[in-house]
């Protein structure tokens, strides 16, 4: 996907001024946050220990990363033993090459897709179209985006959280050329009918993979709509595109992660459908793909192994971090400018696309840690964001004014007498700006503060000078 993260500030401003987006964000926040909380409360009421589960999830993911090379080799061997082909892709371009290659080999003219964020990273749909293969998104949210001129998703679980009902109704009426529907059930039914014919005629199904199970050589797909099952049952070719960090050891590990993922993502105890797919259709079977391909993708992931950012590879793509992030809740996902928004996107985008392409993202956070406390695998997101800020400082990517200001503050603060003098002058200046009133309306030194709020007036003297005065007999 084209990177637009360098326009974060402008995009954020646009988002703030968009009343429809603001309304949608308000409603969706309540739903995601409340549902997750309710699901965990239910779980606890049944004697479940969600905190212990989070720790177990973190430990499991860490254990895999310690021997990731061996786990990947294990998966490759168990998957191929069941008749799947395992391919490797260094980057997005290679993903596209592999898929097109497979498509041409099997005479594919249409491919139905269930959700794959990696295919977004790779810009796969455009590449397929250019190669004469028609891609059809079947996840309702992704489908809506596709027919809206390939608009990018704004959330990793709920891709059209930014859209209202009317927008979707207008879009369907225009593209499907049918009478405009007004209710969400009617729109959903219309999508079901339109997409059903595609499921039945596509030669290839493309999916992501929530987890790869090394023990059995299987892929686990976690979905609600049934499109994931359609895409992996009906067409004769199935291609799974997934990151190398998605491998897990056993079926028991899958059960553990399935207690964490749906609750954290949508507040469900389990997603409607969990499919564990292993190998190809047997000669006496009615359905299933005759050919199964796994594309194991790097695209930046291998580089995080053994680095100070390795913890980020634990991510199971639940979206809880962005649901609880005050910044995401205020500006939505598009402002982040790439595939992944919110806290996890602010960590991954600079790491996967280049730190200089996403300078603002690690700073567009208050480090409140609302994300970290809900992450099902306990990724210390604020710490990773801060480390990215450090990298920017090391690589001299921060604006000169900011670098000097921080250094100057530290220098002055290390010299008590100079600091005392500076703050005494500073506080009198602020007092003067307040003009005897209670607040400063325009704070020239940092206008960004006073654009949206006042700056309360200081008392007029510093604590240190007042205290020193009181200590004198």
């Amino acid at each position, binding site marked *: 996907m084209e990177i637009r993260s360098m326009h974060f500030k402008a995009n954020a401003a646009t988002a703030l001024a968009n009343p429809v987006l603001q309304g949608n964000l308000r409603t969706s926040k309540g739903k995601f946050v409340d549902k997750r909380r309710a699901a965990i409360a239910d779980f606890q009421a049944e004697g479940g220990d969600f905190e212990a589960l989070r720790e177990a999830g973190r430990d499991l993911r860490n254990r895999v990363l310690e021997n990731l090379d061996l786990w990947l080799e294990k998966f490759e061997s168990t998957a191929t033993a069941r008749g799947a082909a395992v391919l490797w892709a260094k980057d997005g371009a290679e993903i596209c090459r592999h898929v097109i290659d497979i498509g041409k080999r099997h005479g594919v003219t249409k491919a139905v897709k269930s959700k794959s964020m990696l295919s977004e990273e790779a810009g796969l749909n455009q590449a397929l179209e250019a190669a004469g293969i028609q891609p059809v998104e079947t996840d309702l949210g992704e489908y809506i985006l596709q027919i809206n001129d390939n608009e990018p998703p704004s959330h990793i679980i709920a891709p059209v959280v930014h859209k209202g009902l009317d927008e979707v109704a207008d879009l369907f009426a225009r593209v499907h050329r049918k009478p405009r529907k007004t209710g969400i059930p009617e729109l959903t039914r219309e999508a079901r009918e339109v997409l059903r014919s595609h499921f039945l005629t596509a030669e290839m199904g493309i999916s992501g993979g929530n987890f790869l199970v090394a023990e059995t050589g299987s892929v686990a797909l976690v979905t609600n709509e049934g499109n994931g099952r359609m895409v992996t049952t009906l067409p004769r070719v199935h291609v799974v595109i997934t990151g190398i960090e998605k491998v897990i050891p056993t079926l028991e590990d899958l059960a553990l992660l399935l207690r964490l993922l749906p609750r954290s993502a949508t507040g469900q105890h389990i997603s409607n459908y969990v499919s564990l797919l292993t190998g190809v259709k047997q000669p006496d079977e009615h359905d299933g793909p005759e050919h199964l391909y796994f594309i194991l993708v790097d695209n930046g992931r291998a580089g995080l192994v053994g680095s100070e950012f390795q913890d980020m590879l634990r991510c199971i793509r639940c979206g809880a971090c962005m649901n609880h992030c005050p910044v995401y809740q*205020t500006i939505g996902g598009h402002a982040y400018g790439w595939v992944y928004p919110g806290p996890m996107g602010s960590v991954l985008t600079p790491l996967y696309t280049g730190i200089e392409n996403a300078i603002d993202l690690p700073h567009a956070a208050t480090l*409140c840690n609302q994300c970290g406390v809900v992450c099902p695998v306990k990724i210390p997101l604020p710490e990773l964001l801060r480390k*990215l800020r450090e990298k920017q400082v090391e690589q001299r990517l*921060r604006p000169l004014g900011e670098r000097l200001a*921080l*250094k100057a503050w*530290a220098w002055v603060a290390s010299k008590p007498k100079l600091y005392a003098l500076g703050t005494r002058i500073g506080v009198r200046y602020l007092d003067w700006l307040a003009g005897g009133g209670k607040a400063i309306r325009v704070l020239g030194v940092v206008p960004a503060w006073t654009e949206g709020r*006042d700056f309360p007036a200081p008392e007029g003297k510093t604590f240190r000078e007042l205290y020193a005065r009181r200590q004198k007999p």
Partner: protein
Amino acid sequence: MRIALFVTCLVDLMRPRIGFAAIRLLEAAGCEVVVPAGQTCCGQPAFNGGDRASAALLAKKVIAEFDGFEYVVAPSGSCADQIRNEYPGLLADDPEWHGRAVALASRVHELTDFLVNVARLDRVPGDFSGSITYHDSCTGLRSLGIKRQPRELLAKLPGVELREMPGAEECCGFGGTFSVKFGEVSAAIAEKKCANACFTGADVIVGGDLGCLLNIEGKLRRMGDETTRVLHVAEVLAGDR
């Protein structure tokens, strides 16, 4: 007990009365309070800004200055967290300073946590009367576990009626330099916090971190609310003098 007060740069500059209120409370708890004269800043702005070198410079200064006290108390969750939880890692490469940072860390407390869990303050000197709603500052809450402590102390004032706001634990949008780097987004988050706080109809919004309080107060006034007061929990507990 011989306590050093880490007054914090924001309190020093903007609201000295919070510092004096903290002293009054600590003395009411029977502590001898010392205010190291050369103190300035804990270094969090540099640390969060990614400038480790500057942050380490200030960390060493603080460690040296606050050596030799039984406890160090700060009327701020974020400053207490910086010294307690971040200094050791920041100085991990230097064994001597690392050791000193670890030794200091265990003695550092946020004010309300100190008063409840260490000093076990029985009665508070203040006499506040009115309705209050409490904002839980992020670092204090999530890094230091400050939640119950201020409420326990406020409950000791017979005249206080505590009303919990929706989203009390949600970020107010301050985030240090975030408030000026992304001023518009920050103000929009602050607006939600103010709406939640005002929803309770409380007379006063109270919190434990001055950065948050300046942010909330500034937004309230810009929204046209000149009557809701915004106070630090130390001020409410210590009363006027």
